[in-house]
């Protein structure tokens, strides 16, 4: 299915020819039904990045659904996310590299197909998210362009002719359309099974199993067609998957992508802090910061550390890296851990823990600069220390949330909503909601998330945004005073 960089020469030559043929008017429309797989060479890097960028958007769409956003909100959020990660300009946009944008869109879609064809559950979620994305694009598409796209495909509908329309005039007019425009309105006839959503809302006239769809609702047919098409193709892809297992380079990437759907794609949160937070963080500030700005997982780590005066390896790793990225320097980190482990003597500490701390800062061993764990890693870590939203029992989580965030404005009446999302398995949504509630005093509204409607995907993202908000507020207060 995919022609990768290093394929045997014979095939390559053949593909070259094909590629030549394919380029040119490769993507005439902004919308794509993804009929043809990408038949060109793709570098591993492109393979991964195109998919990751697309996954970010799909994950945002999923969480929009979980957060009960209205269609308009979903549309705006998705559109801004698309602009950021996967721009796709219309055919008459000036100065945009349309071909390559559409190529990436095309490629990303097919890579994700590979990652999500494996189980019924993944397929279902993928189809839902992809269809929503298609809907967003369809609605934001230029009218003439959409018209062109529609005429480029055969949707297998029967146009209702004048005499038939006249015959059912009475019935049709009880559904939609106004009497004065009836003459001009066009209707299309399809089997009702193709427009279940319209039947569901009793929006069309149905007779003998045929639904009379007005041109205004034509999009329903298109969406349904897209969905059915994707469903069929995913099943075919699933059947061919075992052949791909031979390629060891792709297996890992694909596995990674499919787990990515669980927690949303994580943002890499390693570069920003050093320069963003000009004032460095000192060991004695951590207590205060934890109370004000940390997400539940890190609050939990901090509380346990204070209670037990000790922490096991993976806990230290998760929490330590979080603090590192937050801006705690190595010297401060050693002071912090030394003070925290106040029941052991210097000697044991130096022998047993110091190396480890220095290692995580890239000063020992292979000297790697380890990034902090993101939500996805924490969620899938298995629960020690893990993500409280996922790994705590429900009663435990409720009381922990109340005692932790009560001072910041979380009341028991908010719990119901949070617990509902937890029950639905949308842990990052629950976390985001808690962020919104506890930061409502800084003007964060429901649905805004950690800025621009984004969900929490990284504990450092949570903390950094929280600190940012406080700073902005303080600055404002200062302005007022002076």
């Amino acid at each position, binding site marked *: 299915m995919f022609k990768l960089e290093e394929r045997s020469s014979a095939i390559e030559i053949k593909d070259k020819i094909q590629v030549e043929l394919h380029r040119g008017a490769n993507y005439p429309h902004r919308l794509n039904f993804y009929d043809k797989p990408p038949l060109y060479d793709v570098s591993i890097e492109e393979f991964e990045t195109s998919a990751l960028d697309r996954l970010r958007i799909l994950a945002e769409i999923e969480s929009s659904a979980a957060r009960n956003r209205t269609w308009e909100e979903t549309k705006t959020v998705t559109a801004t996310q698309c602009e950021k990660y996967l721009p796709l300009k219309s055919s008459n946009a000036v100065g945009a590299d349309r071909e390559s944008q559409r190529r990436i869109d095309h490629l990303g879609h097919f890579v994700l197909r590979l990652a999500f064809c494996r*189980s*019924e559950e993944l397929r279902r979620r993928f189809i839902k998210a992809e269809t929503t994305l298609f809907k967003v694009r369809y609605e934001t598409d230029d009218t003439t362009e959409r018209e062109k796209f529609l005429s480029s495909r055969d949707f297998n509908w029967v146009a209702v002719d004048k005499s038939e329309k006249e015959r059912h005039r009475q019935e049709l007019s*009880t559904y939609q359309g106004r009497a004065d425009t009836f003459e001009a309105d066009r209707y299309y006839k399809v*089997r009702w*099974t193709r427009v279940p959503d319209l*039947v569901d809302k*009793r929006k069309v006239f149905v007779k003998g*199993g*045929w639904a009379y769809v007005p041109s205004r609702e034509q999009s329903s047919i298109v969406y349904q067609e897209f969905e059915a098409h994707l469903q069929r193709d995913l099943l075919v892809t699933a059947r061919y998957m075992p052949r791909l297992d031979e390629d060891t380079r792709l297996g890992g990437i694909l596995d990674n992508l499919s787990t990515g759907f669980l927690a949303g794609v994580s943002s890499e949160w390693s570069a920003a802090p050093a320069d963003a937070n000009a004032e460095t963080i000192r060991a004695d500030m951590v207590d205060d910061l934890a109370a004000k700005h940390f997400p539940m997982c890190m609050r939990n780590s901090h509380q346990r550390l204070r209670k037990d005066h000790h922490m096991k390896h993976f806990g230290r790793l998760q929490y330590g890296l979080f603090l590192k990225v937050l801006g705690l320097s190595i010297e401060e980190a050693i002071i912090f851990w030394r003070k925290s482990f106040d029941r052991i003597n210097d000697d044991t500490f130096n022998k047993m823990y110091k190396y480890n701390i220095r290692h995580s800062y890239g000063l020992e061993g292979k000297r790697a600069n380890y990034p902090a764990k993101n939500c996805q890693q924490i969620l899938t870590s298995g629960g020690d220390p893990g993500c409280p939203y996922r790994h705590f029992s429900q009663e435990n989580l409720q009381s922990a949330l109340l005692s932790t965030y009560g001072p910041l404005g979380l009341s028991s009446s908010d719990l119901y909503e949070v617990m509902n999302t937890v029950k639905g398995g949308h842990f990052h949504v629950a976390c985001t909601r808690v962020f919104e509630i506890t930061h409502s005093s800084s003007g964060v509204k429901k649905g805004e998330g950690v800025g621009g409607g984004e969900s929490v995907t990284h504990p450092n993202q949570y903390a950094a945004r929280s600190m940012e908000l406080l700073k902005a507020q303080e600055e404002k207060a200062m302005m007022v005073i002076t």
Partner: protein
Amino acid sequence: MLAFYRRLYPFKPIFHWLNHEPTPADLFVKREIAFNLPGEVIIRYNSFNDHDEFKKQVCKLNPTRFEIGPVYSSRPRDRKTARPGTFNPTQRELVFDIDMTDYDPVRTCCAAAAICKRCWAYIAAAVRVLDAAVREQFGYAHLLWVYSGRRGIHLWISDKEAMGLTDDQRRALVSWFTVVPKDEGKRVNVRFGARGLPASLQTALDHLAVVFTELVLYDQDCFASQAGYQALLKLIPDSRVVDALETKWTAAPSASHEKWDDFKKQIKTYKKGTPQRAALTAAMEDIILQYTYPRLDENVSKKRNHLLKAPFCVHPKTGRVCVPVDPARIDEFDPEAVPTVAQLLAELDAVAESAEHHSGLCSHAHGQVCAEGDRIVDWERTSLKPYVEMLERHNQGIMDEMRNEKRGAGKLDILFACGRLIVRRYVVVTLADVDISPCFLSLL
């Protein structure tokens, strides 16, 4: 129970009904049958090769009843050998369940599990509306209505398209037919803005208006009691009218049809063409729908893998057999006249006795043969006969269509073969010689 399964249960017609053709096909072989044994034990995922095997197992387990599930992608009994994720429902009759309990707020004669001829009229109205709507709007033809044995009725639709519907499509269909809101106290809301009723409901309303007068106003007398007319008042959107009616009705008791007339008079106090009058007329139509439109048990229809009690099973509480019902004569149907198992077995005994009387001279061996021959048609000698025949007629329709379809496919094959021959160019002469062309043409 065992005797009923052994001698009376029409396994073969049921097999034909599920299978759509005389020889066992996927529709039967990959079909799930679930047995309910005494003590709430359910054995799921049984499947059988043919009706004999099916019967044998039923007689062996002697279940209180059994239920029919979907056709799966592989045999349900072999599901553990299927690759994980590949064992899924593929086809299933489209089923509807109408249950009397959903009508409790609008019936005055009985409550909960009880049912009488009077409240059956609600079911009868629902059957008429739903039967007509499914045929007319969705174009399905193979509808089998089955009495559920106590206080409800099931509808099984065996059309090919209906069998293949996905869960989403089923959900859409159910919601198309859901008019009366589940939540009591909510009004019927089916209009788009100030428009009239959607065409699909307008036809139903024409029939239901008659039912409403006869059943709700006269027979059930729904608005006689205080709770009854309070419920009615809640559905009227005009506070002036509500106040006027309330003072009148609390002052003196009156019958439902009088109250309805009061309501109509109140509507007429507004001039024709005013928005208030239009709103109240619409409300009147909505109230009729609220009281009489079919109330479906949605969960039965929405998912393909929902199990539903097979026709001709016996209802454990009442002992009545779940017999097919003719929708054209639904008004005459009396649930209390449906045969019970005990009654049927008694009929059989009576027949056997009289037969013994007549063939007293028969040799023992001969008698055995008689018994063997008789067993096959045992149900023919009881009051179960008309019901089984009804199912067989229904099956005939399904099987005819299946056969025609196959023959159609066959025709194409022949056509294709001929086409190939002609392309090869050496049979053209032969065709003319033996004069096949007319019959070839007739095949077309």
